[in-house]
């Protein structure tokens, strides 16, 4: 199987995932790792809620679209859910291709669409125990729409 698509609670091994793509021999592997960023001194943790039954299929559809547009040998798209601390990895996108531009462009496309076309919701936990749901950003939707 040349694609690895997963929705899971536990973290992932970036080096192992990239090694899998490097072994395909295309000569170009690009990757993006999304991490939890502190949103100020009150920030405690980020919680990701998923629609589990739909999430993996949605990621698969995004990967299928990328494969229609770029010559890709392999794709990895892993998205975590649950409560995550500052610095924890949230998402890994990685692409293998015979062409530098294809691997880089497909990687950017995959994260832009994952942000706007996969059923996950973020909320921030504050140190006082309260939570705030993160609002969708118009800039994210604009970035995703720019690929259409």
């Amino acid at each position, binding site marked *: 199987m040349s694609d690895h698509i997963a929705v899971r609670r536990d973290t992932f091994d970036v080096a192992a995932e990239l090694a899998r793509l490097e072994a395909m021999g295309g000569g170009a592997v690009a990757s993006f790792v999304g991490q939890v960023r502190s949103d100020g001194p009150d920030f405690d943790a980020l919680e990701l809620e998923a629609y589990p039954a739909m999430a993996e299929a949605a990621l698969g559809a995004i990967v299928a679209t990328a494969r229609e547009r770029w010559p890709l040998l392999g794709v990895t798209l892993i998205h975590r859910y649950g409560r995550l601390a500052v610095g924890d990895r949230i998402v890994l996108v990685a692409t293998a291709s015979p062409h530098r531009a294809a691997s880089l462009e497909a990687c950017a496309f995959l994260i832009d669409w994952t942000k706007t076309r*996969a059923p996950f919701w973020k909320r921030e936990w504050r140190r006082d125990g309260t939570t705030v*749901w993160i609002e969708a950003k118009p800039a994210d939707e604009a970035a995703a729409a720019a690929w259409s």
Partner: protein
Amino acid sequence: MDILYFAWVREAIGRDGETVTPPADVGTVAELLAWLSDRGEAYAVLRDVERLRFAIDQRFEPIDASIVGATEVAIFPPVTGG
């Protein structure tokens, strides 16, 4: 028909889902929202349609999509993953 709620929609309604049998004249997502919003104060969140998104049988669909024959309808805020 199974209805699923996520994120602040789930919190407002106070449950993550329920099984309902809408009347025959409820044929679209918009009509389903109107019907569900009459179930009680907690369901008032479903009148805030501009802030809601939907999936029918695990595919994203617009508010005017048909729910006829659907087995699972999910109602949630705009997604914020990645």
